[in-house]
């Protein structure tokens, strides 16, 4: 049996794959994340609200999601103490606008900085220098526009500050909101012109894969290359999806096996240290934990969210290609379209007359309790669990989306990404499939 070590470049952070080959096919894959930072440890014995400032530093590309998960975890502590906080609609809306802006940035960056260059490389289209590539430069401008929307409310990005248990700290003016709306409009125009090749509303009305295949758009070109290289039939995993955080697209927390959607609950989440250095310095081989739902691996992220909300376009792609790489890639861009429309709606309805923040009347400094915060981040379900004792953090636990998708299972029960890679005949395919999950190794090895 042959074993090869492959490095995965150009993802958030870095990862290596150790592949076992048999008869020219990948028989098993160990996914290794080697750089460990210990944020959970660092948070111990710090005052409770430091979590809102420290946890964004888990990840430079989804820092607002972490800040929000930490805030929700602290707010859950108030609920556990039977002193629930009232969060105004304005604060809820601003939180969602910031989260959406960050997700839009993520999706655009992932497609133009990571996926498109890989596809160009595969198709032998030259792509040597990002700083000279017209599409890259235009996408970078759009990334900046989406982060401007975020910064208008959160002060800066990455690592903005705008959250506090009880609401948000910013108090925007109407002109700030118009500024954000204008930034959003320029992204919508870009997506209509380049990415989707049609008006946003038309794209969002699609219910058949055929409708996105014949147009002159970067999405169609990407689909063509993916079909050419067989990504419509490889990269399939368990066909099980999970979204534990709330979204306007569906009600509550959900899971599905294939297309059957059922309710889910964060209490069934189990974290495994199997194969990690935390369990054994000698036999462990990664710093990434694994997350399971009732002992099963589930895929999280945009594909999961759109499958669970029964989005007609993604359901049609799924009917044809199941959870193949192609479906996963299109889902992420389709979610970008949904987020653009939703954020535009939120900015228009934002009621500035409401309070941004209502100070808590109850003091957590004298209680011992535990709170959980769940956020649907760009790459999927993000969970923060905070335990507090006498005003200080006694324990902090983070489960990131990449832990769900790219943990390490064993041969009998491989993780989502392992299952998607096993059986392939080339490292190039494995590399691309890996990237289709939008790997974030920095989040994973928090």
């Amino acid at each position, binding site marked *: 049996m042959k074993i090869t070590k492959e*490095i995965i*470049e*150009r993802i*958030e*952070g*870095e990862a*290596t794959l150790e592949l076992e080959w048999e008869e020219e096919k990948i028989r098993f894959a160990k996914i290794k994340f*080697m750089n*460990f*930072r*210990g*944020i959970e440890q*660092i948070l111990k014995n*710090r*005052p409770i*609200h*430091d979590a809102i*400032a*420290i946890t964004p*530093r888990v*990840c*430079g*590309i989804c820092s607002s999601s972490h800040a929000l998960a930490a805030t929700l975890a602290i707010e859950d502590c108030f609920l556990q103490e039977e002193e629930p906080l009232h969060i105004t609609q304005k*604060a809820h809306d601003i939180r969602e606008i910031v989260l959406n802006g960050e997700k839009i940035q993520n999706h655009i*960056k992932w497609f133009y900085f990571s996926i498109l*260059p*890989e596809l160009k490389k595969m198709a032998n289209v030259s*792509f*040597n*220098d*990002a*700083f000279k590539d017209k599409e890259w*430069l235009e996408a*970078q401008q759009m*990334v*900046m526009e989406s*982060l*401007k929307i975020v*910064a*208008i409310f*959160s*002060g*800066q*990005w*990455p*690592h*903005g*500050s*705008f959250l*506090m248990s009880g*609401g*948000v*700290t910013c*108090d925007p*003016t109407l002109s700030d909101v118009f*500024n954000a709306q204008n930034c959003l409009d320029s992204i919508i125009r870009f997506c209509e012109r380049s990415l989707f090749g049609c008006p946003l509303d038309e794209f969002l009305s699609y219910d058949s894969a055929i409708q996105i295949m014949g147009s002159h758009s970067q999405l169609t070109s990407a689909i063509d290359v993916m079909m050419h290289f067989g990504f419509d039939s490889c990269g399939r995993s368990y066909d099980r999806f999970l979204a534990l955080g709330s979204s306007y697209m569906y009600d509550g927390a959900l899971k599905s096996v294939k297309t059957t959607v059922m309710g889910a609950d964060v209490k069934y989440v189990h974290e495994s240290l199997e194969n990690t*250095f935390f369990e054994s310095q000698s036999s462990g081989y990664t710093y990434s934990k694994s997350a399971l739902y009732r002992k099963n691996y589930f895929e999280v992220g945009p594909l999961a969210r759109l499958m669970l909300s029964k989005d007609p376009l993604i359901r049609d792609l799924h009917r044809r290609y199941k959870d193949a790489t192609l479906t996963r890639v299109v889902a992420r861009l389709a979610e970008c379209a949904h987020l653009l429309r939703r954020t535009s709606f939120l900015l228009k309805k934002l009621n500035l007359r409401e*309070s*941004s*923040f209502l100070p808590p009347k109850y003091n957590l400094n004298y209680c011992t309790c535990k709170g959980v915060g769940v956020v649907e981040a760009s790459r999927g379900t993000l969970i923060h669990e905070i335990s507090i004792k006498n005003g200080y953090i006694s324990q902090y636990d983070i489960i990131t989306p990449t832990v769900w998708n790219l943990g390490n299972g064993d041969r009998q029960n491989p993780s989502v990404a392992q299952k998607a890679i096993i059986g392939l005949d080339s490292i190039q395919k494995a590399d691309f499939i890996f990237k289709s999950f939008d790997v974030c190794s920095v989040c994973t090895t928090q």
Partner: protein
Amino acid sequence: MTTMRKSKIVWLQGLTCNGNSHSFFNYPQMESFDTHFEVLYHPLLLGNITFEALLTDDTTFDFLILEGALSRDPLLLQKFNHPFEEVLDNLAKRAKHIICAGSCASFGGIFRLQDENKITGALFNGKQKGGYWDEKKNVINIPGCPLHPRWLVDTLLILQKENKISVDEYLRPKEIFSYLMHHGCLRNEYFEWKVDSKQFGEKEGCLFYVQGCQGPMTHSTCNKILWNGVSSKTRAGSPCLGCTEFDFPKKALYETHTNMSLPQTPFGVSKRAYYSLAGIAKSFKIERLERKLIDEDN
């Protein structure tokens, strides 16, 4: 545009969240950047050379940009199956200038707190001199969590043109870090008249007295050049966390640390001067500053 020799850049990451890379991707004039610089290797971008080729090549380059805290312990940090030490020593020898991008590379930052003996900044371990290296002549620190994209590019441009840049005792460019976060803060008038913020979520009041704002002690141009072209922490109603200083992150970031109920004094201002003036300012009640900034009733 005149043709010139482009300065070559290699970007290397230690223990990091990638925040400085993503902040750099917010630099608004990338096409202009491209006329000055050539990025040989950046871990997030598809470039001309792979990581392996970068290591085997022995050509020199102008800037080694370091992002993230550094460690010689291979159990904490390695680069694609290579010990980090081997990679950094190789690249550092070939670089004319070493730029520490962000607080982690400069001082160790947040991640240093995991193990202060093993994780450090390049030349500083917190305030302590001597970090990953004991001494090195060609290191510049651009702290911040993350750094502002203009702090990085402006420093590179100055070094490219002048070949040197004036720095403070923490090796931070004076051009940038002689300013304080406090400069340009929209809440300055409330600071002058000692009107503190009553609660989060309002435009009014200074965040220095209760909410833990470290703006008057923190060196940066956040409120001069703004973030993402539009805002800053204090403009979004949140306190400055002091992220460009060697002691970031302090404990209790949303509380003002007081000594006998008095806050720390602003950078370089004596207690006597500050408290005398503060006492006088506080004895007046400025009615306008007690009202809403945008006052619909008057």
